[in-house]
């Protein structure tokens, strides 16, 4: 084994340390955490109380459900609208196409902080405040351009001859698009869905401010706990550990396609 492999290994160790600490805190009782005279690397008495609280308290598990809801809505919506648009950018030149593309990309660069107040006004005005739809739609501002960018990259790798053959064979456009084209770029859809999921799942500023009670996501429920007091550190840690799971699952499922997505440089 080459000596330089020690570098990635050390780095991964560094990455795992805070994650380990979070897990270990989630398994400790509050007393143990707050007892500063007895500090130890491993939890001395493992307890699942924090997890029990989360699974039984509706404010907690409801928050997870809310989060998953808007992330799912956002991912599906973003991909659905991005597919035809990416196809257009890939196969056609049209009036203003380059400017439109750049304008789309520039929204990915927009600071959410700039939009937080206008979004609160906007979504209140259309009556979507405090629903998962508000967050899902707000996130499309950043995710749709990303999805279009990624999908266009994959679509451009499919030769136009495929489209032309389908027409010659007599297939209608919808049939061609759904039954022939989409399976060809399924890896691209996987990558785009992964990135949409990722950006929507991790975002907090908009998710927190566009909801209050009914649609409160986990990111908001947790920050409330954090500011209250140190008493609930174990609970906070447990909530945090549970948020790692969807991310880990998603990356595991799309692990082979991610390399392609990164390789295209279209993050």
């Amino acid at each position, binding site marked *: 084994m080459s000596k330089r492999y020690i570098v990635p290994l050390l*780095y991964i160790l560094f990455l795992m340390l805070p994650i380990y600490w979070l897990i270990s805190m989630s398994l400790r009782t509050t007393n143990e955490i707050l007892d500063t005279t007895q500090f130890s690397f491993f939890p001395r008495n493992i307890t699942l109380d924090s997890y029990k609280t989360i699974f039984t308290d509706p404010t907690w598990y409801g928050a997870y459900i809310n989060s998953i809801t808007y992330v799912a809505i956002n991912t599906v919506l973003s991909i659905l609208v991005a597919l035809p648009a990416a196809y257009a950018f890939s196969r056609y*030149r049209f009036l203003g196409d380059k400017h439109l593309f750049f304008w789309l990309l520039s929204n990915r660069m927009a600071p959410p*902080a700039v939009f937080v107040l206008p979004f609160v006004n906007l979504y209140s005005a259309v009556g979507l405040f405090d629903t998962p739809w508000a967050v899902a739609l707000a996130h499309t501002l950043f995710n*749709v351009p990303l999805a279009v960018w990624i999908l266009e990259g994959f679509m451009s790798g499919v030769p136009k001859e495929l489209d032309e053959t389908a027409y010659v064979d007599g297939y209608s456009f919808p049939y061609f698009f759904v039954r022939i084209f989409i399976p060809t770029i399924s890896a691209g859809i996987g990558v785009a869905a992964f990135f949409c999921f990722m950006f929507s799942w991790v975002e907090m500023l908009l998710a927190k401010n566009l909801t209050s009670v009914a649609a409160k996501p986990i990111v908001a429920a947790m920050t409330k706990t954090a500011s209250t007091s140190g008493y609930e550190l174990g609970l906070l840690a447990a909530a945090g550990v549970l948020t*790692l799971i969807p*991310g880990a699952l998603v990356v595991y499922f799309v692990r082979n396609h991610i390399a392609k997505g990164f390789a295209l*440089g279209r993050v």
Partner: protein
Amino acid sequence: MNKIQNNKAWFFVIPVFILVAFNALVPLMTVVNYSIQETFGNNEFFWAGSTWFSDILKSDRFHDALGRSLVFTAIVLAIEIPLGLGIALCMPKKGPWVSVCLILMALPLLIPWNVVGSMWNIMALPDVGLLGRTVNALGIDYNYTRQPFSAWVTLILMDVWHWTSLVTLLCYAGLVSIPDAYYQAAKIDGAKPLAVFRFIQLPKLKHVLTIAVLLRFMDSFMIYTEVVVLTGGGPGNSTTFLSIDLVKYALGQFDLGHAAAMSLIYFLIILFMSWLFYTLMMREETSP
């Protein structure tokens, strides 16, 4: 690909356009509205011209926040780009461990940003956190809730932990796409490892490095959640970056005029930088 000229393609683009325009144009118009007007409530607005803009541009508060953001971004870029690249260079090209390593490295990128902040919060607590306790045990007086320097160090450490993997993954993808023949030719030419890096790897990584720098610049300049959860912008306002200051104006103080003006200035800075990078990137792609 030879694209066909056809304006009917707009029909394909309309859903995207409507969605993004709804989210972008309407709020932007609101912001512009607020930035040039003044209100005392009751939905009455008075023309304020460029008052808000000159207020912001002249205010120390804005300059401080801008300065802090620039310094933070500079430090973070200076650490993450070389570090990420270095780790990618040390990774094996293929083998059973590669996917495991890549998945583990990707994990920090998928953690909700507030959890990242909470994680480091718990790590860095001076009395009960792993990091805090260890550093203090070594004799260094460390308390990020009271000392601006410690707060900065913790924030930078957190950001490096959080985002370096993005650079690593991008650079790794770029590296494995370099055909073996280049390394073989370099061997035959008698090139030393440094020359291989300088003349083969670095030029071939130009594209991914540009993307990495672009993304990290934007995201670190806009950073909000992790900082707010970890330090709240403090102690005092030593870690109040632009986003945090802006949200304070908008949602904290409901100071719509200042918030709006600052939003526009902030957005313009980023737009300018993204145009710069986009042009640079496009120029790279078209050059032979």
